């Protein structure tokens, strides 16, 4: 059975990235309890977006996508 765990250096990178994003999400949640705040990072397929938007209509986005960059999405929903 193949090893499903990422290489150690990738696991470290993901830990750092997760905490980077948690930093601002937690700040927003604390300061704006009227919002539900969600983030998803390292998205490579638009199907994985939290909210479907036609991101590919932006030429600058497509340039980055062609360069192999992933992207992320931050979503604010008003809950009251």
């Amino acid at each position, binding site marked *: 059975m193949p090893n499903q765990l990422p290489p150690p250096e990738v696991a470290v990178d993901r*830990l750092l990235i997760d905490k980077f994003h948690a930093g601002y999400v*937690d*700040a927003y949640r*604390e300061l704006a309890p009227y919002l539900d705040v969600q983030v998803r*990072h390292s998205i490579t397929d638009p199907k994985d977006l939290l909210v479907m938007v036609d991101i590919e209509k932006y030429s600058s*986005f497509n340039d980055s996508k062609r360069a192999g960059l992933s992207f992320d999405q*931050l979503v604010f929903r*008003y809950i009251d």
Partner: protein
Amino acid sequence: MPLQKLGVGEYRDDVYRPIGDWMLMPGSRVAEERIQKLNSLEFMGLSELTVDDMWAVNSRNSQIIFWSLGQTVSRLSSPDVAAEVYYQLVNSLAAGGWRNALRHFGTDRLSAAQLAWYQDASHIFYGPHTQAYVEYDERVVTVTRNGCQISYHHPRSQLTVC
């Protein structure tokens, strides 16, 4: 206020027209290959550098420095400490930015249009590699981004991060 009557990036009467496509922004059209050459000092004439060049390289350098901060703390201390450094730093920056937005609009609760404006405004000064594609209605604001301050294709991990 009909959205169509607003200029790009303009806010009026609680309506905001997002920047949308950031190809309009300084440095956005500088190719990755040129950024890498400039960053490697593979050029001679300083006076030939354009404002676009400088915006693009400055933006990329800030990403590299931010990314390297985490890698360095991780190496000198531990990945957990590096992660906590990121958390505390970004948490403080985000809270400060949010409070600035509240003060700017003179409110204790941002509307969707104000939040959309704030997201564009807070990303614009980080340069062309942190584009924020903002869309909103009355209940939901979405910010889809190509990158962020630690976006960097790290050669060791082969991981494009954001």
